[in-house]
């Protein structure tokens, strides 16, 4: 086993933000971080494509942002703490984004959390998930 070859890859529905992801998503994430400045948030809302062009991310990453494809951004190297800046700019909450990523409405997701959250039982290994779950 070499460093970087990790057993967390067996956890379903989970994209650990390791060096591979960080490397892949660097420009996407640094774009997200630019939204910490109010003037950049305004500029983004005024012309999303122009703002995105200033960051040398891939076309797929750019499209995922435009589509607000939250899971797609994660799969393309986005980190949730970074992509959450786009959600904040849109006035959306973490629960809205989390719900979207697991195919639930914000209300359904919030209710799941009120019921005690998602159990780890049946969610520890990819072998426990049916094909098509992810």
């Amino acid at each position, binding site marked *: 086993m070499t460093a970087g070859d990790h057993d*967390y890859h067996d*956890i379903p*529905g989970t994209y650990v933000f390791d060096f591979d992801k*960080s490397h892949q998503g660097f420009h996407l994430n640094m774009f997200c971080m630019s939204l910490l400045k109010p003037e950049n948030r305004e500029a983004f809302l005024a012309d999303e494509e122009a703002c995105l062009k200033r960051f040398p991310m891939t076309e797929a990453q750019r499209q995922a942002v435009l589509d607000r494809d939250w*899971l797609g951004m994660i799969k393309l190297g986005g980190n949730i703490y970074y992509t959450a800046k786009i959600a904040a700019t849109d006035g959306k909450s973490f629960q809205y984004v989390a719900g979207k990523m*697991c195919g639930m409405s914000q209300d359904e997701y919030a209710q799941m*959390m009120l019921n005690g*959250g998602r159990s780890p039982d049946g969610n520890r290994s990819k072998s426990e998930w049916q094909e098509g779950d992810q």
Partner: protein
Amino acid sequence: MAKILAGVGTSHVPAIGAALDSGKADEPYWQPVFAGYKKSKQWLKELNPDVVILVYNDHANAFGLDVVPTFALGIADEYAPADEGWGPRPVPVVKGHFELARHLGTSLIFAHFDMAIINEMVVDHGLTVPLSLMCGQPQEWPFKVVPLCVNVVQYPPPTGARCFELGRAIRKAVEAYHEDLKVVVFGTGGMSHQLHGERAGIINREWDNRFLDDLTADPLRLTKIPHTEYIRETGAEGVETVMWLIMRGALDDQVKEVHRHYHVPASNTALGHIILENV
């Protein structure tokens, strides 16, 4: 001489800060979250520490991906609340303690903990929400803060064992400090939460409570937990809980649990809180 009197573990969910700042703390959803800190606020007020060493992680607000320090110590005179994308929290500026921070940074590096040193930084909910939970809404924070940032965003975070050893080195450094200071260490973040992916929303009440039990009963077991176990059992972002082991390492071998609070949910997160005193 300075002395570490106690340790505090607490989650640092951003929505808790937002609830408090927007006057929603008494709403039925949030009331049980804050109720568990009533005793803690009184306890901290009576203890009246001079300095809190606050272990937390930044969430893409002070640090980007350009440089990711594993351990970073703040030596600044003050730290402004960060704009995390929805404007800065309306909370007081956090005052640092340069003299103690300088001593800590020097001692830790000579003890082979190669800290990154921060001269300027904004502080996000990871640092300010624990202050709000433990102090309420004062005009000024009632103590000075030495921030200790840990990378838990980009894998791998430091190991539990390394965090615990860093805690021990912090304790040794504090005890060698010339001035009589009462110091409390906060370990923050966690507990169960996963914010991303199709598995978002994982909560493992049993695992979290076993962790809380063993902070007193068997902290050395906790230092051996691999990162993958945190991620698998408590969610990818639940690995933050490893930071509590810095706090635990800074305390005596024997400690007394004086308070515990556990509540699900605070937004996406299992809120955990504990107070440990040296006996």
